């Protein structure tokens, strides 16, 4: 069971963001504790990705507060998020297709040797280490990532988030492009990271994955928060009801 007595790892408090008059996120408050997986659910366009991009620095909130370990922080671009040990695996993977795995893994955070030159060999060696742990079958270190399969690309994107000692991990549909075996690997990885005390926001459409992987689920509809429930205390029917009807079940937490 996740201990939720202390200060939350992340608190998104009363966040709002609008695009040209349309309220994509409308006064939403969610939180995340260490070692916890919080699922973010809702229809396409419900505002999940937009909300989470305020945390990863891709968008800027119009109103509200972001608190990390109880302290308010300003996140205005992806570098700020990285400085707070927030790592993101985007749905699009956000890989530069013309570069190899090591270049993508270290993109924006290259290892430099003396004289400030990029140390390619060291980056490749580190990439081989982390990939050996995450995806031992991965061999294609010296080809651009557009030559890789969907699963291999996904493992590069995951490696990038995991390598830099994330404390807060955002995963936007990490298994959408994967086969059953690779999906299983991602689930195991999530369990492992959770055990290390990392907090994970998981955007997920597959209700079975949510029931299996998440501790709590926050459901959004039309930019507003329908509610947050403990996954143990509800059925998948209840959650589907929240997503489709925007109705909070009677015994919600």
């Amino acid at each position, binding site marked *: 069971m996740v201990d939720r007595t202390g200060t939350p790892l992340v608190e998104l408090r009363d966040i709002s963001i609008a695009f040209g008059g349309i309220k994509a996120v409308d006064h939403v408050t969610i939180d995340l504790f260490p070692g916890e997986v919080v699922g973010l659910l809702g229809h396409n366009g419900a505002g999940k990705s937009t909300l989470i991009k305020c945390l990863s620095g891709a968008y800027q909130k119009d109103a509200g507060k972001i608190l990390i370990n109880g302290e308010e922080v300003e996140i205005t671009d992806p570098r700020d998020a990285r400085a707070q040990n927030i790592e993101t695996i985007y749905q699009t993977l*956000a890989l530069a297709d013309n570069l190899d795995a090591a270049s993508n893994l270290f993109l924006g955070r290259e290892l430099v040797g003396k004289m400030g*030159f990029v140390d390619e060999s060291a980056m490749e060696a580190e990439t081989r280490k982390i990939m050996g742990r995450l995806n031992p079958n991965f061999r294609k270190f010296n080809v651009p990532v557009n030559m890789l399969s969907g699963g291999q690309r996904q493992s590069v994107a995951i490696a990038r988030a995991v390598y830099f000692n994330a404390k807060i991990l955002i995963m936007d549909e990490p298994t959408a492009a994967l086969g059953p075996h690779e999906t299983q690997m991602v689930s195991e990885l999530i369990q492992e990271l959770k055990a290390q005390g990392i907090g994970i926001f998981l955007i997920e459409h597959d209700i079975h994955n949510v029931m299996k992987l998440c501790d709590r689920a926050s459901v959004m509809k039309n930019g507003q928060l329908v509610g947050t429930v403990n996954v143990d205390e509800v059925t998948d029917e209840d959650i589907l009801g929240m997503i489709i009807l925007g109705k909070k079940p009677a015994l919600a937490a």
Partner: protein
Amino acid sequence: MTNAPQTHSPQMPHESGTTRFLRLTEIDPRLLGMLGALLLIWVAFEAYAAFVLGRPSLLLGASQGEANGFLTPRNLWNLSVQTAYIGIMATGMVLVIITRNIDLSVGSIMGMVGMYMGLLQVEIMTPLVGLGHPSLWIVSVVFGIAMGTLIGAFQGVLIAFLNIPSFIVTLGGLLVWRGAAFLVAGGRTIAPMDETFSLLGGGSFGALGETGSWIFAVIACVFVVWAFINGRKSRQKHGFALRPVWAETFVIGLVCSVIIGATATVNSYIWPKGNIEKYYASIGQELPVCAQDNDTIYEGVCASFGHGFAYPVLIMIAVAIAMTILMTRTRFGRYVFAIGGNPEAAALSGINTRAMTVKIFALMGGLAGIAAVIGAARQNSATNAMGQLDELYVIAAAVVGGTSLAGGVGTIYGAIIGALILTSLQTGMVLIGFGDGSYQRIVIGMALVLAVWLDIVYRKRIK
């Protein structure tokens, strides 16, 4: 270290000898293709001059004095000088095109910078400090590069922060800067330039000379050997696959042969007798007999008056090395490729893509500034027409050199070879008597389209 150093597997199944050779030596097949095209062009012009026009050819045993084809030390030396400023700008255009932009204004920037630089040097500074003062050339060079950089940065700001497409901003620049180049001096030609300054444009005195060029060649070869050994050590340290020793030796040998061959060629282009006369007059000695006729300058003491590498060529080599290091060894270079491959991913990785755009265009402008220095020095004057149409040659050089207009792909050495190919076509057409411009443009235009088509075919095949 748990994994022992691996070597490349000796034989992959179904692999021809050539493929295996290229894989083991890690020579880029596209580089070979470009060099092959270049050699083909050279030999074709030489053959046309020898067999159709009946000119004496060095390859067919004519003496250096009478040889008048394409492959003569004189022509190749001139080719190297003419390639220099296009090549310098093409290295910057590679960055611009990799990041999915274009810069149509480089020729006009070159013209305008040249004009302002000429005015500053000839009409403002010379009356102040006097003829031949060393500050003249230094201030001119610094001013030229700074002005080019500022103009480039200004265009970069419009592109990055106002989101105006680079095609439009630089198309506007093409017109605006050219117009400004005319207005500043009312279309006058500013001449002559400072003597030291004009050395930067080449010529007999603006070259390294025979001894200097050999020293340069030796240093270059030592550097190549050092770079290969260093690369091997680094691979070894991390236990990566190594190239077989014979492949390393072969590549080093090949590169050094090219360096030595180029040095021998530029050194065997002897000063014309007029310049040898000037030299002896300047040191106050009597003119040797061999320098009394242009036919005998290949004999005796005159034969030691080889041109060697021209200064503009040395500048191009320095720029190419610096740009290659920038693109392959620094974060800046990584970000250029990343932005070209996926701008959104680059931004999400915390790369400040707007600042990068400004820097890239500033760099391009600075290189156009260097080209303006070389151009004005070479003409020994500043004219408002300098650099006209050069933007097209620069873009063509980058593209012929393998830079993809779709972004994300390109090399500095490719751009230099591309510049060499285009300049060869241009000067070759003049040499064989099609110099009135129309045929030249037709041939270069067709070569551009052909080169891009071949590249598309090649890319499809490797996929």
